[in-house]
């Protein structure tokens, strides 16, 4: 039965790594602007759809990937510039509605620019399953996990070792203070959207061989990504990764040992319980309100 357990774990890791990648995008934007971007899933969709359709049209993969990343980044920048920035001082809920509006817009545009069909990409390193003690894992899952790991290391480096990254962090802690010490806050916000759109695209590209993609693929990824980011503690990259993996593994274990019909519900119950005891998520800042 250990093989079965291991298989559930692999299943959970595969889904979890996908959720984690989606969650990271939420974390980055939240870090820089305290905005939850409900269009994050659409960045992932754009990355996947753009790459898949380009490859289908004969563009080589190594060219399609950077093009799709650039396309997604442009969309992210445009969204910040035209939809989020003009509403900077609005209520949190107002900005949430704006990002939801943006996600609806992007889905609508995607079904016109592309189509409503599902698209796939060939797996990067073949389709031969890797056998481990009676369980199997697809090489593409390793790609997803690997990319998530690279991204988290890259982000850590960016936020802790580069001037611009530190500026972004500073902006999230105190916008005014950041402005006073000469951080171009507007640029930072723009960059945060560009970065998370880029990240979304990368996620979309590596997961498409596993999950396929269509114009609505961003809904589920956005939802799970949000769950992952909140469970991990908003604004914390490591938290988003851990949150994503927990959600994925919880779903797989629930399918395996409890009930596959209720696996999503079980995952949400776990999230609720964690929040009851840790109201800022697993790794969120636990500050006392200053009055």
């Amino acid at each position, binding site marked *: 039965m250990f093989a079965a357990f291991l298989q559930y774990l692999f299943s959970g890791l595969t889904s979890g790594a996908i959720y984690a990648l989606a969650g990271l995008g939420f974390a980055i934007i939240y870090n820089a602007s305290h905005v939850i971007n409900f269009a994050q899933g659409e960045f992932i969709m754009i990355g996947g759809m753009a790459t898949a359709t380009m490859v289908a049209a004969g563009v080589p993969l190594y060219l399609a990937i950077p093009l799709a990343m650039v396309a997604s980044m442009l969309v992210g920048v445009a969204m910040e510039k035209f939809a989020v920035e003009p509403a900077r001082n609005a209520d949190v809920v107002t900005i949430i509605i*704006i990002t939801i509006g*943006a*996600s609806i817009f992007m889905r*609508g545009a995607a079904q*016109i620019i592309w189509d409503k069909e599902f698209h796939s990409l060939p797996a990067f390193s073949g389709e031969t399953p890797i056998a481990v003690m009676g369980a199997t894992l697809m090489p593409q899952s390793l790609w997803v996990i690997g990319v998530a790991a690279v991204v988290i290391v890259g982000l850590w480096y960016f936020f802790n070792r580069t001037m611009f990254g530190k500026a972004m962090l500073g902006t999230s802690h105190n916008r005014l203070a950041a402005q006073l010490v000469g951080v171009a806050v507007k640029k930072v916000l723009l960059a945060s959207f560009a970065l998370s759109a880029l990240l979304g695209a990368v996620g979309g590209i590596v997961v498409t061989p596993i999950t396929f993609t269509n114009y609505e693929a961003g809904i589920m990824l956005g939802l799970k990504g949000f769950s992952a980011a909140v469970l991990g503690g908003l604004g914390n990259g490591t938290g988003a990764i851990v949150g994503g993996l927990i959600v994925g593994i919880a779903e797989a274990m629930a399918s395996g040992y409890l009930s596959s019909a209720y696996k999503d519900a079980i995952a949400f119950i776990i999230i609720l319980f964690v929040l009851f005891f840790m*109201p800022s998520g697993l790794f969120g800042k636990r500050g006392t309100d200053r009055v």
Partner: protein
Amino acid sequence: MNLMTARTGGLAALAIVVAVAPVGFSNSYFYDVGVNAMFNAIVCVGLNLLIGYAGQISLGHAGFFALGAYGSGILTERYGVPAIVALTLSAAVVGILAFAVARPILKLKGHYLAMATLGIGIIIHIVLKTEAGITGGPDGMSLGNFKMLGFTIKGDQMWYWVTGVLLIFAVWLSLNLIESPVGRALRAVHGSEVGAEVVGVDTSSYKVLVFVVSAVFASVVGSLFAHKNGFITPDIGSFFGSVHFVTMVVLGGMASVYGAVVGAVILTLLPQLLAVVEQYEAMILGVIMMGTMIFMPKGLLPSLMIKLKSREAGR
């Protein structure tokens, strides 16, 4: 500004709009859309107490709406319970459920609260989808007319007038609450929780109270919706339904009873109007949502009021 006149004036204006609108209705489809708009408006008036006045977000209220609908459906169809009893029982169960989850959930703030309510809504949706033996599963369930005291609400016209009266009643209740000490305490919770606490407002109890009230509003409307439509699917309780309700409230204007009504009416009519543009529907809807929130961040009605006021002042 005299509150009394604003209050009676607003209610009268609402009554007039409800009464006069059917002049433009050429058939029962219009009444149907009108009823749906008012159903949504009632839910939003309740939800606005929570979101607009008490400042607590919920992305799960479609779940309570669906529970009301299915409660009525199951009780009337499978157990032959009279419709009004089914509606009341469902609302009571939803109220108790909301009460049970409210305390731990409402300790959370902002996006964490959004996540938790989202989770509650999704769990309800999954249960309704999965327990097909009772709910009929994703293919939905049918139910009969709303009968009460030998009287049957039937047909879109009759539903229109019943719903119209209920909407006015709901707005009246909501205005009453907001203008009472209880409502003031709720608004204070939005303004500053600790500020309210130190002068004696038990903020967590008030948050629980308003959460339960808004859930009961949703449940009652869900029951009525189920009878009126005659057919329900679990998707009325989906995450999208909840987002839809919140969008109505925010678009129309948070902390404005009439704003919530306006938002609900507009977002109910919009898909009907946009059906003619076919595949561009989603893009246009997205642009309208973004545009409204960018240019009127306080929502349609409050923003218009501010403009009107400043114009008057300028004169």
